[in-house]
C-alpha cells in the first residue's frame, strides 16, 4: 500500500476557497465544479430555479474567489496597463473599474478581466488565466511591482435587484451613490472591504473584495442581512445561465486564448468577440496588438460573436415529429453546435441556454460575415431523439436581457 504524506495529499487536491467552510455545508447536491484550480459549488440545491431567480428577482451570493487577482503598483503602473490592455488606462479615475480584453501582437485575445484604479499608482487586475508572466514580460524597464494576490483575497459577488438594499444594511457607508463600474472602500462589521459595482450577470450587482482570513464574517453578515430580501447562496451553474442572457462570454468556453490555440482559426480578436466598445483605438501611444487591431477595424471582422434566438414554434415542430414536447437542457450547455445558413455551415454556438426570464432558448454564436447582422435567419443544431436536426433561429443583438435597474 502506498502511503501519501499529508503535505503531498494536500497538493493532490484542488484548492478550496476561503468560504469553503460555509459553502460546503450548504452545497446539498455536492456538485462541485472546477474553477482555476479550485472547487466551487455548482449549485446549492438540486434545481437551479431558485438560485437563478435570486439573480433576477432577489439577490444571489456567489463565491468568486478563484478569479486571478493582481496588484500592480508603482510610478509606471498605469503605463504598463495602458500598454497591455485595449482601454485608455490614463483616463481611468481612482475608484473606477474598466472591463477589458488584452491581446498579443497580432491583436488576438489572450484573456479578459477588469482593471480597478485603487490609487494614483495602484491598480487591481482580475483575469481568468494566470497573467503574471505576461505582465512581467511587458514591464521590462518599468518602475512597477506586480504581485499576485489570488489566494490572499477572497471575493464575493452579490447580484440581483435587491443587492443594493442588502449592502446598505451591512456596509458602514451607503452605496446609493456608487455608479456602475465604480468602486469604493468601506467596511462590513469590522472587516475592511472594497465594493465594486460589477458582476457577471447583467443585473444590478456588486463584488466585494476582502482579505482571505476575514472572509467568513462577511459571508455571514451578508447572508443574515439578506434573509428578509430572499438572498440565496448561488453556484456557478445559475450564474452561467445569467451571463449568457447578459451576452457575456467566458474564456475556454466561448473563446480560446491565443497562447493556448493550436491553430490560427481558434484565436479570436476583440472585434470578433463584440468588444468594439472596449477597444480605444483613439488612445495615445502604443499598446500590444494596436496595428493589427487598426487594420481589422478598417476591414471589419471576418467573424462575430452575436446572439441567436431559437424559434420555439420551429423547435416544437421538430419534436412534434417524434411525438414529444421540446426537450432542452435546463442549464447552460457548454458544447459546440453547428449554425447553418441554407444548409451550409456558417458558424457555431459555444454556449446555449434556456432563459427563464425571457422564456426563450438562446445561444452565444460565432458567425461568419455577412451572416452576423441582426435579423439574419439561420438554423442551429438540436438533437431530437438521437437525430441531428436544424431548428430555425434569428440573429439578435447582445445582450439578450438588460433590466432597466442594471445601471440605475
Amino acid at each position, binding site marked *: 500500500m502506498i502511503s501519501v504524506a499529508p503535505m503531498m495529499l494536500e497538493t493532490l487536491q484542488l484548492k478550496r476557497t476561503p468560504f469553503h467552510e460555509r459553502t460546503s455545508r450548504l452545497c446539498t447536491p455536492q456538485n462541485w465544479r472546477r474553477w482555476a484550480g479550485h472547487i466551487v459549488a455548482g449549485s446549492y440545491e*438540486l434545481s437551479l430555479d431558485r438560485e437563478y*431567480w435570486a439573480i433576477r*428577482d432577489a439577490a444571489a451570493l456567489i463565491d468568486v474567489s478563484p478569479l486571478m487577482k493582481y496588484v500592480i503598483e508603482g510610478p509606471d503602473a498605469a503605463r504598463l496597463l495602458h500598454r497591455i490592455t485595449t482601454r485608455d488606462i490614463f483616463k481611468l479615475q481612482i475608484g473606477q473599474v474598466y472591463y477589458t480584453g488584452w491581446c498579443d501582437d497580432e491583436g488576438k485575445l489572450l484573456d479578459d478581466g477588469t482593471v480597478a484604479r485603487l490609487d494614483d499608482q495602484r491598480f487591481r487586475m482580475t483575469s481568468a488565466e494566470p497573467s503574471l508572466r505576461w505582465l512581467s514580460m511587458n514591464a521590462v524597464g518599468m518602475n512597477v511591482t506586480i504581485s499576485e494576490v489570488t489566494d490572499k483575497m477572497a471575493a464575493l459577488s452579490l447580484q440581483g435587484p435587491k443587492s443594493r438594499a442588502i449592502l446598505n444594511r451591512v456596509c458602514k457607508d451607503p452605496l446609493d451613490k456608487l455608479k456602475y463600474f465604480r468602486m469604493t472602500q468601506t467596511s462590513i462589521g469590522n472587516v475592511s472591504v472594497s465594493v465594486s459595482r460589477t458582476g457577471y450577470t447583467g443585473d444590478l450587482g456588486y463584488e466585494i473584495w476582502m482579505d482571505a482570513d476575514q472572509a467568513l464574517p462577511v459571508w455571514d453578515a451578508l447572508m443574515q442581512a439578506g434573509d428578509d*430580501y430572499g438572498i440565496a447562496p448561488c453556484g456557478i451553474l445559475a450564474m452561467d445561465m445569467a451571463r449568457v442572457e447578459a451576452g457575456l462570454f467566458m474564456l475556454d468556453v466561448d473563446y480560446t486564448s491565443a497562447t493556448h490555440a493550436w491553430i490560427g482559426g481558434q484565436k479570436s480578436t476583440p472585434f470578433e468577440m463584440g468588444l468594439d466598445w472596449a477597444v480605444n483605438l483613439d488612445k495615445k501611444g502604443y499598446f500590444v496588438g494596436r496595428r493589427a487591431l487598426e487594420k481589422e477595424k478598417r476591414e471589419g471582422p471576418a467573424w462575430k460573436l452575436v446572439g441567436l434566438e431559437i424559434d420555439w*414554434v420551429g423547435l416544437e415542430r421538430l419534436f412534434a415529429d417524434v411525438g414529444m*414536447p421540446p426537450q432542452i437542457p435546463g442549464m447552460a450547455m457548454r458544447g459546440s453546435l453547428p449554425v447553418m445558413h441554407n444548409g451550409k455551415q456558417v458558424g457555431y454556438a459555444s454556449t446555449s441556454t434556456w432563459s427563464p426570464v425571457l*422564456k426563450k432558448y438562446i445561444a452565444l454564436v460565432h458567425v461568419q460575415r455577412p451572416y452576423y447582422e441582426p435579423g439574419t435567419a439561420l438554423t442551429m443544431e438540436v438533437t431530437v431523439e438521437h437525430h441531428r436536426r436544424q431548428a430555425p433561429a434569428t440573429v439578435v443583438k447582445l445582450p439578450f436581457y438588460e433590466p432597466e435597474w442594471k445601471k440605475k
Partner: protein
Amino acid sequence: MSVNQYDAIVIGAGHNGLIAGAYLARAGKKVVVLERRDVVGGAAVTEEIFKGYRFTEFSYVVSLLRPEIIRDLELPRHGLKILPLPSTVTPMDNGDYLAAWEDHDQTRREIYRHSPRDAEAADEYSRVMARAAKAIKPVIGLVPPDPSSMSPRDLMGLLKLGQYAKSLSEKELYRIAKLVTQSSADLLNEWFEFDPLKGTKSASGIIGTFLGPHSPGTAYVLLHHYMGEIDGAFRAWGFAKNGTGGVTAAIASSARALGVEIRTGASVKQVIVKGGRAAGVALENGDELHAKVVMSAADPKRSFLQFVESKHFPDEFTQQIRNFRVRGSSGKVNIALSELPDFKCLPGESPLHRGAISISPSIEYIERAYDEAKYGQFSKQPYIDMIIPSMIDRDMAPPGHHVMSCFVQYAPYDIEGGWDDAKRDAFGETVISTIERYAPNIRRAIVGKQVITPKDIERIAGITGGNIFHGELLLHQLFFLRPAPQWADFRTPLPGYYFGASGAHPGGGVMGAAGKMAADAALKDWR
C-alpha cells in the same frame, strides 16, 4: 371617426379580455377594453388591502397560461416573471408531514418514508397522467367542432379530432375515457394507499367544482391540472411576480403597446343591437360606444342574460345559459402576517415554506367537507391550499413580514340564509382555527385579514355565482357544450357578438386560451 367609434369593444379587463383586445389590436383593429372596476385584472388582480402587504386577491398561481400567448404578446418584455413554487407539503395530525418536491429523488425518498409502495406508484402515476394530459392537450387548442353540425368547418374539425383519436392507442383511449368519467377518489384508490397523499392529490380534482372527491367527473379536473406540466422547458407553472395581478399588468402593458385603449370605471349596461347585429355598448354613465364587433369576457350569465336583451337570442339558447351551472364553492382568506406561520411539523423556517401548504389529510376529510356544503353550510373543517407569496417574491410584504394566500373549499354561494357579515366572519374564523391546529402561532401573527366568500367574488370580481372558472368544469359543460351546445366556437346567436372568457372552451385558470381563440374567431369573420 368619433371618439367612441371603435372596430372592437371588449367587455371586461380580466386576463381573457385583455388578451382578446391585444390580439385584435395586433391585427390592426382599433380596440377598447372596458372595465367596470377602477383596476384591471378581473380575478387576476393584486391589491394592497393593508398598507405594505400585497394580496394576490383571488387567483394565486399560474399553471396554464398558454405559451403562444406569452410569446405572441411578448409578455416577458412587459414584466411577466414566473417564479418557482417548488414543493407541496401536507401537515399531518400526528405532527409529521408529507412533502412533494420538484426533484424526483427527493419526492420518492419522502413518500417512501410513509409508504414504499406509494413511492413507486407515484412515479408511474405521474407519467401516466402526463401522457394522458399530452394526449388530450391538442384538443384544448382546437375550436370545438359541433358533432351535430354539417358545416364544413365543424366537419373538418371532427375529422381532425377523429384522426387524432385514431393516433392514440386503444389503451390510451380507454384510459382517457375512464379518466373523464371517473371520480378522483376511485382513480387514486387504484394507485395509492397513504391517506395524506391521496387527500392532497384528490384536492386538485375538486378545485372550483361543487363536487366531492367521490363524485364522478372529478378525475378529469385532476388531469386538467397536469396540462401545465407538459410544455417541456416552456412550462409556466409557478407564482407570478407581483401575484396574478402581475400577469394581467404584463398583458395590459402589452395590449397598450399594441394600441389598445383600456377604460376603467366603465360599467357596461347593455349591448346595443342594430339591424340584428351587435353594434356597440351603452355604459351605466350614459355614454355610448360603437363598434363592428363586441366581445364579452364576462361570465356567461352576465354576457347573455344581462348585457343583451333576451329577445335577441333564441329561447332555447337563453334556457341553456340559465341552466349553466356556476355554483361558487370556494372562498379566499388573505392574511397579512408579522411572522411566518410556525408549523408544528416544520418548526421555524423551512424550504417548504416556499411552496404550497395543503390542508388535505385524507380523501374522507375532503368528502366530509363537501357533505356540509351540499346542505348549504361552509365546511367546518375545510380543504385549504395555502401559499406564502412573500417567501417567493419579497416585494409582496414589508421586509421580515409576510402575506399568506389561503384558498378554501367548500364555501357554497347558496349558503343557508344567505351570506352576511356575521357568516363571513365565522367563515374566516373557521379557516384561522383550522390553520391554528397545525400552526399555533398564526393568530398572534395576524396583522390583517381579508375574507372573501363566493358572494364577494361575485360582488368584487363580477363573476356570477362566484365560481372561479365562470362555470364548473363538469363533463356536460365542457368542450362543445361550453357554454351551450352549438355555441362553443366563441360566436353567439347574435351576429357581431363574441364570447371569450373562462365560461367558454377550454375554461378555467389563468390560461387565456378562450380570449385568444375568441379574437381569432372575430378576425376570421371580419369583413
